[in-house]
């Protein structure tokens, strides 16, 4: 049997196995942990690149764990949405490269094996979440990534880190349980846990439509907590700003996107129920909440002085963009929303890693203390400026494409108010990111920042690579669009109508 056939399951098992052996390795040689994590995630990156290429060429791959019959066993279904695995493992690789010096400085030496183990578990949970075709397996993977996420927030040495982690845990656990309940509802009316089978059986369960609606509501609630949609976003700013910077990058760039992937899967499950359930009003409400999220997240970000807090609120705002794109029920907006999942992940990881490098070198995280940091760390600040321009959406960068598509979609759907909210949010975003650039370049530099003193190589390499990716995906926007378009079309043609 060809080994490439088993890539879908290996993609998930390699990081889990590496995470479990990490603690043993940490017992003998603490410095090997870094290389072991790097090794595992590199393998994942290669495997997911292979799988994405195959999906691009031949279409979705179905793999059945343990060679049970397709409907009995756990199915792994690798489709266009699962292409997120390449993003997850690639960004995970860069985050782990970045971690080396930062973590050695920030957290207790004895916790280092635990840290890498948790990072790998978190990545494994995300990889499993996006590739699985089984609803209960989806729940288990979600729990793996959430539990490791709570622990990662608490790992830092900050005074209220545990409190932020606890807040995250309570809200996260409530959302997980409502999703578990919803899965139970769906199982009770369809008798299946396979997503394809549920999608096929749901229209036949005509007598139990209220149950299906209750399940839909519980799913929406659960996933919007995970994705931090207004008004369920309150856990995000604390958790994301208090965690160590690589962890913030991981949580803010990737983990919140999991809720959105969950929402896409939900639309996939409910795609044949048109006529029995009208989901459009629900999507409309979410679109309004998303518009509020955009403006409110950006509004709060303007008043932050702490650079990581600002980035965390900006994540809230950008999640609003993605939700708006997905819920406008319009093909351009949907494409924009899905592409923004990818682009925002890249930009936000870049920005958090830059913030991490600055905090590592200077020890300050308040903007008012960072006057003139552009002279001390020119490369880091140049890359951060690219990130800032991308997140605002200035044309040659990748942030422009998605916002453009979402705005066009809002106009096409005859909902210009949403386009207005989008522009309004973009203006606020511009206002607060200008503050960063202003502080770094145009304020009178502090005396200790006069001398050039860059971050170590392990930090610069991921930052520069991500900045290049921001520019490349903006100029070569054709490639992600060509990949996303078929997925968006197929989702839209069957899902909501």
């Amino acid at each position: 049997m060809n080994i490439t056939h088993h890539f879908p399951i290996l993609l998930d098992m390699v990081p889990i196995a590496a995470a479990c052996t990490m603690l043993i390795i940490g017992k003998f040689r603490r410095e090997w942990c870094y290389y072991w994590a790097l090794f595992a995630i590199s393998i994942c990156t290669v495997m997911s690149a292979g799988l994405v290429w195959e999906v691009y060429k031949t279409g979705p791959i179905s793999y059945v764990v343990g060679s049970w019959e397709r409907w009995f066993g756990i199915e792994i279904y690798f489709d266009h949405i699962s292409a997120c695995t390449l993003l997850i493992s690639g960004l995970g690789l860069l985050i782990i490269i970045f971690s080396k010096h930062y973590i050695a400085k920030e957290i207790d030496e004895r916790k280092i094996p635990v840290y890498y183990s948790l990072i790998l578990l978190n990545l494994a949970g995300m990889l499993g979440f996006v590739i699985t075709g089984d609803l209960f397996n989806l729940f288990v993977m979600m729990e793996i990534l959430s539990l490791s996420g709570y622990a990662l927030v608490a790992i830092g040495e900050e005074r209220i880190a545990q409190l932020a982690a606890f807040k995250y845990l309570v809200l996260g656990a409530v959302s997980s349980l409502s999703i578990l309940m919803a899965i139970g509802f769906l199982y009770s009316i369809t008798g299946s846990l396979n997503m394809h089978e549920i999608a096929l059986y749901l229209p036949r369960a005509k007598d139990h439509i209220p149950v299906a609606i209750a399940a839909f509501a519980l799913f929406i609630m659960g996933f919007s907590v995970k994705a931090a949609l207004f008004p369920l976003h309150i856990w995000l700013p604390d958790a994301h700003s208090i965690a160590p910077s690589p962890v913030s990058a991981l949580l803010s760039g990737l983990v919140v996107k999991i809720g959105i992937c969950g929402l896409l899967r939900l639309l996939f499950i409910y795609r044949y129920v048109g006529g029995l359930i009208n989901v459009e009003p629900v999507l409309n409400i979410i679109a309004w909440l998303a518009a509020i999220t955009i403006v409110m997240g950006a509004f709060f970000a303007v008043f932050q002085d702490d650079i990581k807090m600002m980035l965390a609120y900006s994540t809230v705002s950008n999640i609003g963009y993605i939700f708006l794109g997905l819920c406008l029920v319009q093909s351009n907006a949907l494409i924009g929303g899905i592409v923004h999942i990818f682009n925002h992940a890249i930009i936000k990881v870049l920005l958090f890693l830059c913030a991490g490098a600055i905090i590592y070198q200077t020890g300050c995280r308040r903007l008012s203390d960072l006057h003139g940091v552009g002279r001390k760390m020119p490369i880091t600040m140049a890359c951060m400026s690219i990130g800032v321009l991308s997140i605002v959406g200035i044309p040659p960068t990748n942030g422009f494409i998605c916002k453009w598509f979402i705005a066009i979609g809002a106009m096409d759907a005859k909902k210009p108010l949403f386009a207005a909210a989008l522009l309004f949010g973009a203006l606020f975003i511009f206002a607060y990111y200008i503050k960063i650039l202003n502080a770094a370049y145009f304020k009178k530099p502090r005396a200790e920042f006069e001398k050039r003193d860059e971050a170590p190589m392990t930090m610069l390499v991921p930052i520069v690579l991500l900045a290049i990716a921001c520019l490349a995906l903006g100029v070569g926007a054709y490639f992600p669009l060509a990949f996303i378009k078929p997925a968006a079309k197929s989702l839209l043609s069957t899902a909501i109508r």
Partner: protein
Amino acid sequence: MNYMQVIDKAGTNFNYVIAVTLFIIGLYTVVAKDNLIKKFMGLNIMETACFLLYISMGAVKGGKAPIWTEGLKKSTVFVNPIPQALILTGIVVAVSTTALALSLMIKIYEHCETLDAEKLKRLETE
């Protein structure tokens, strides 16, 4: 549907009614109680509600454990084993959540010397 029918339906599906009631009691506890330990007990009640829903879903009247033994008749009915298998996994998840939350609470108490949500909020903003 008049209210007699509603009562009738609730009577035949009382396991679901109890599961949903427990779920809501748990949610109320999480939202309304100030003590972090009580909040977490609310979460445990919600977990139990989910488990109850699954297990009662798979139950069959007069059903046997689905294990193949000699001398089974064709007419033997089995309970559905899948929910039980799922809930075993669910219990593992619940135990690890509980362990993590309790250890976080110990740390919070060490740092702040209180487990009251209101007092903690004041400490946080200081």
